[in-house]
């Protein structure tokens, strides 16, 4: 184990994984309860398109993806508000645009398919120190925002209309939630890949929702499950030579299955 922890790439993966998974799990609770579970999926499709743009223009894809995915998150919000679309229809529109752009650019640019498709499955073991520091900084900043606006987030999750009449700036809080989700999806892409980002957002929160422990308790359990699955996923995948992203997601699913069993029999 000491030898395992002495590897630089393992240290980086564990540190980044800890923060990213905690953030995903906390945000996931709000998204699931607001019927926005699939926003992660939609934004990860946009990430695919923006990574293609980054590779095409020879920019570091991470930096290109963040602003584009943030803009897309706001686009989903506006489509819902202005075009009066139901949540998942707006997500579907933006997701299709993202994936179509990615496929189109990779076809036109011809020759970077291997680079692009490596992002589909991610690899937390290849994360570099810059990405680790960005992940730590943004995760701490977002967890602080969630704590600071906890009551507002809880209120609009429970009943947006009443929250508005109580003077909560619903638009500001929603914008904050969508933007945080966008950045988190880009961060999580490195951990589990574009195709599996949704799992990091949804599975820990639906697991936590099986244990009735109050709203704060649900956030805590969700974070615990998320962190546990990422850390154990990294360890297990290293020793058994398995793909890390998929191992993390399958462990998350196992925890979810256990929570259903627990709820049924205890």
């Amino acid at each position, binding site marked *: 184990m000491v030898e395992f922890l002495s590897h630089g790439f393992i240290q980086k993966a564990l540190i980044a994984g800890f923060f990213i998974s905690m953030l995903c799990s906390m945000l996931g609770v709000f998204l699931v309860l607001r019927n926005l579970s699939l926003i992660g999926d939609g934004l990860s499709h946009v990430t695919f398109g923006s990574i293609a743009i980054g590779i095409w223009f020879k920019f570091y894809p991470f930096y290109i993806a963040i602003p584009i995915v943030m803009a897309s998150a706001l686009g989903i919000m506006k489509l819902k508000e202005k075009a009066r679309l139901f949540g998942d229809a707006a997500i579907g529109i933006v997701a299709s645009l993202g994936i179509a752009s990615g496929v189109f650019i990779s076809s036109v640019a011809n020759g970077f398919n291997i680079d692009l498709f490596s992002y589909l499955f991610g690899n937390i073991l290849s994360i570099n120190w810059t990405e680790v520091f960005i992940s730590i900084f943004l995760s701490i900043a977002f967890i602080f925002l969630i704590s600071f606006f906890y009551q507002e987030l809880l*209120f609009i999750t429970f009943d947006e209309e009443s929250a*508005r009449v109580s*003077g909560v700036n619903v638009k500001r809080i929603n914008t904050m939630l969508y933007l945080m989700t966008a950045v988190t999806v880009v961060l999580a892409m490195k951990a589990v890949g574009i195709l599996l980002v949704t799992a990091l957002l949804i599975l820990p929160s639906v697991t936590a*929702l099986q244990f009735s422990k*109050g709203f704060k308790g649900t956030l805590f359990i969700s974070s615990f499950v998320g962190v546990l699955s990422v850390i154990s996923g990294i360890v297990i995948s290293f020793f058994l030579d398995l793909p890390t992203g998929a191992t993390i997601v399958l462990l998350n699913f196992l925890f979810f299955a256990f929570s259903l069993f627990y709820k049924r029999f205890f």
Partner: protein
Amino acid sequence: MMDENVLSVKDVYFSYNSFEVLSGISFDLKKGSFLAIVGPNGSGKTTLVRLITGLLKPQRGDVYIFGERTFLFKDWYRIGYLPQKNYFSENHFPAKVKEIVALGLLSKKRSWKGIYRPDLKTMDRYLDLLGILDLKEKFFGELSGGQRQRVLLAKALVNEPELLILDEPLAALDPETREKFFDILEGLNKKKSTTIIMITHDTGTIGRYASSMLYLDKRVIFFGTFQSFCESEAMTEYFGEYTQHLICHRHNTEDIFRKSYKHG
């Protein structure tokens, strides 16, 4: 401007797309009033409340709360609101009753929104008043419809609002709880001069408590006391003697329109 009025609605028009829902609505409400808004389904009652609470903006006319236009109004802590919403979809919502009620305190808080000892005492007082103190640690999703409604009323009251707006709050309540609910509202209205606006179909019970009644059917058909409605010849002419009699003699407006339709 218009300080003596808690609420002033001035010639308000509102349409959804091209479908006109409210036209030329005007009325004032003084502090300490208890207004019942009644009318058939689709008469614009909920739309009016949504205009009053600033959730919708009138296409013409203005709504003033405490002398301020709703879209400029900032003191939302002065208002308690219980919307018409089907909370049965919240069966899996993980919050406890105390967490839901605490949300009602949010509009008074400025920076860090913690819940402190005096807040807990106020919450306990209202939970006790509504007979649900023992449910404090329960999950909202575990409660019956009537219990949920009382929790939501506690949330609307915990801020001790000057204006309480209730959109069909009686639907999920059994007759006994309904009476208790009215007693609580009457206490707030009489002892604390809380102004109350309530949308209801239950003209039977509301007539005993409300100081005024607004009969809405996309426009104001009647605004005045319940007694003056029953004695109004204009209303007899508008509704017919039979329907007016039904409204005044404690029936439910939903039944009234069904019956008067059959009656011809």
